[in-house]
């Protein structure tokens, strides 16, 4: 073999362009791209801007700025560009009807979150600690999340409506019909159904990251399974729990689909009020103001969650 580099077939002083085109692969595009990469290699700032700039710009222009625009519009009277006013807020905050709706929405969200957290955590715990087929089970849990939200609500209409699947089965068993559709119970069932898969993921993630030796150490030191759970497992997975709670509470608080489809006409939630402003009342600034009210509740919750659980946005990774 040759000893000297001059006898190798790779020019030591060749430029990137020559290498790429000599490389035998197709000609023009590669050459141009190599020229471009060489150009960008020498200008790291421009390179970063070329990669990060477009998504940054789109997210700012079409997500962040609209949210700011909503804040602006919420201070305008009757329509976009209307006179500056605080009326949208004072009207909302002095109306007993609206405040009752906010309180109702809050209560339902708390109930849903509690149910989903309890059931979801039990499920995640059972999968992590007692099952070997975790991938399959996890898949079975998250798959329903990827079907249409409305379709999942529609499935429960089929089941819960009077003479629907549930009542028919009860009838066959000789039991009285329940007629659950258009009740708060139906709303709770519907929310639990759609959010359960979403909450299981962060629970699952935090539980798999928990060192199983800690649980055995606790038992070895004399704590039973329940005390071990309360004094070791739960505190060590609190980040996952907080993430799951946030992921359930926030969308529930802003939801209008589930109460519209499964709840009765008296079971109004705040999201439905917004929907009304845009779909029938056509008072956009008022709708924007309600959007801000929801946002304030959401931000308050996030602040509390950050205090409790720490890295929320890192935990966002578990929602897919």
């Amino acid at each position, binding site marked *: 073999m040759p000893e000297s580099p001059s006898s190798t077939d790779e020019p030591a002083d060749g430029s990137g362009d020559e290498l*790429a085109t000599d490389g035998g692969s197709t000609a023009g595009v590669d050459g141009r791209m190599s020229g471009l*990469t060489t150009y960008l290699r020498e200008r790291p700032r421009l390179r970063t801007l070329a990669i*990060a700039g477009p998504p940054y710009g*789109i997210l700012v222009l079409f997500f962040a700025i609209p949210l700011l625009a909503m804040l602006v519009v919420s201070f305008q009277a009757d329509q976009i560009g209307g006179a500056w006013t605080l009326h949208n807020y004072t009207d909302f905050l002095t109306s007993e009807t609206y405040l009752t709706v906010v309180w109702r929405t809050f209560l339902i969200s708390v109930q849903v979150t509690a149910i989903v957290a309890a059931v979801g955590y039990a499920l995640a715990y*059972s999968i992590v600690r007692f099952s070997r087929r975790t991938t399959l089970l996890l898949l079975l849990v998250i798959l329903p999340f*990827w079907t249409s939200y409305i379709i999942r609500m529609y499935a429960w209409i*089929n089941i819960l409506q009077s003479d629907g699947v549930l009542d028919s089965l009860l009838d066959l068993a000789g039991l009285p019909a329940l007629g659950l559709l258009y009740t708060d119970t139906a709303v709770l069932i519907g929310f639990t159904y759609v959010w359960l898969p979403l909450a299981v993921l962060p629970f699952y993630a935090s539980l798999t990251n928990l060192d199983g030796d800690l649980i055995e150490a606790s038992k070895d030191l004399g704590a039973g399974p329940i005390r071990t759970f309360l004094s070791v497992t739960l505190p060590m997975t609190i980040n996952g729990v907080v993430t799951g709670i946030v992921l359930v509470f926030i969308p529930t608080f802003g939801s209008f689909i589930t109460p519209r489809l499964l709840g009765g006409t008296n079971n109004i939630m705040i999201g439905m009020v917004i929907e009304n402003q845009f779909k029938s009342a056509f008072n956009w600034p008022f709708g924007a103001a309600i959007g801000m009210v929801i946002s304030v509740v959401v931000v308050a919750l996030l602040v509390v969650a950050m205090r409790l659980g720490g890295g929320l946005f890192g935990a966002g990774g578990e929602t*897919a």
Partner: protein
Amino acid sequence: MSAIDRVTDPLERFTQAHAARMAAAVIVSVIAFLWLPIGVLVFMSFADGGVLSFPPDELTLRWYREFLTNDAAIDAIVTTLTISIPATGITVALSTMIAYAIDRYVFPGRSWLQLLATLPIIVPLVVTGVAMVLFFKGTLGLPDYVAVVIAHVIRTVPFATLVILPTFLSFDRGLEEASKDLGADEFETFRQVTLPNVFPGVVAGGLLAFTLSFNEFVYTYFVKGSGDPTLPVYIWNQIRYNVTPEVNVISVVFLAVAVSMVLAAVSITRVELIAQR
């Protein structure tokens, strides 16, 4: 088992002794709760008597035939695809750029980019929906189609990024050094080494983005004007105003899309990796 012997509380003992059985019961009942309604939907799409009667008198393919001859439903599917396909393409490009930038570069505002790419998941859909209709329609006066595609991109980018970013983060950059060491320049290295290795994650991100966009309702409902509804909006109108058994058939279409896309995505990446991140 001396540790157990020291536990005297009967409840603790019971839990210790029956934990595995309790776990199995939880798993079976929750998964049944998640899948029975879907089973009911599929079953009812073959029911002869219509949506309201259970059990059905007999099974039939009649609703599938009616669905295939229903121009409004077919149009809704076409409308959805003309939105979802370009939105998915844009989302995959943007999410790949985000993942690449966050993985490779340190620049001012890097953590803001990550936050911006996560926030649309956390802000309630109805709030973002309202903000979008105000800004896209009220301020910018965007045409319907453009506004809806942008809305879908904003909806899907966070999820696609969540899938694509880990594949970049877990990609061994030593491989790129090896490639350059062996004579390949940046572009050839990206084409021959980086891309083949992150490709599964990018495709999985695209499949999930498409699924999400195909199902997208809230943003579309707010941003899109009347006329030419997407399939989820069409279903919404059907359910709210005149339910026909055909809705069950459309449900099966949704299910098939979701299940096949997600299974395809899972088969090329590992779902656990995403969940554990």
